[in-house]
């Protein structure tokens, strides 16, 4: 017999099950629920916008940002080389 079964079979522990159950304030519970829902909602769309998936399911935004940064760095190097006359 498991200890859970023992607990269920023990008449004294059964008394504990019969203890009056306290209920939370329904108004406050509704307010907390609404607050939590709103918090959950707030995080959902922003992360989806950041990580909009392509057709094959991979996030596009990080790749795009990476490409733009790469192009910017290359153009900077190109400009620096021209300024110092190392590139015609």
């Amino acid at each position, binding site marked *: 017999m498991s200890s859970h079964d023992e*607990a269920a079979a023990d008449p004294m522990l059964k*008394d504990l*099950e019969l*203890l009056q159950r*306290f209920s939370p304030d329904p108004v*406050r519970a509704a307010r907390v629920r609404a607050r939590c829902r709103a918090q959950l909602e707030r995080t959902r769309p922003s992360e989806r916008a950041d990580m909009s998936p392509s057709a094959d399911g991979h996030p596009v935004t990080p790749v795009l940002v990476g490409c733009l940064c790469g192009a910017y760095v290359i153009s900077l190097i190109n400009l620096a080389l021209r300024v110092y006359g190392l590139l015609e």
Partner: protein
Amino acid sequence: MDRALELQLVERLRNGDPSAFDAVHDAFNARLFNFLARLSNRRDVAEDLLEETWLRLVTHARRLKPDTHLGPWLFTVARHLYASYCRARLVEDSYAEGLIGLWPSGSPRPSPLDAAEASEAQRRVAAALSALPARYREALLLVAVEGLRPVEAAQVCGVTPEAMRQRLSRARDLLARRLRDAESGGLLSLNEVPT
């Protein structure tokens, strides 16, 4: 809660689905409140800690493991919050200790939670339970009142299943002794009535 449904709810919570939160809230709100109210013996504290528990779930929803057991997870958070509350109270009380003598003392009144107990028998059991040391009280609350399996209760309390089994056995003995003492105390006081 059915395990398949629970796993589905966890997945939906990880995806930020508010309707999944509603389902979890419906399933656990009253149970968590009852646990916290019995642990703290105070409705206002239980309400505050309950709110904080739900906020923790929402904050950590994305980082939940796919195989999370929601019941033990929530009760663990609630228990940790209660422990933090007790630690904070301990610090406050140590500061306040020197001031206590300045306040007028009155006879202790039963808390509103005590007054709400329906019957004399319930009141007796509730009083015996609330007089137990916290570690035994929480073990009984989790297993006998909230219906967690002992292995889940062990997880919530951060002890081994064997330690939880021993804690439950000790808690049961202590509760029985306190109930016996209360009964004999009651009989004694009746015998003391002059005839």
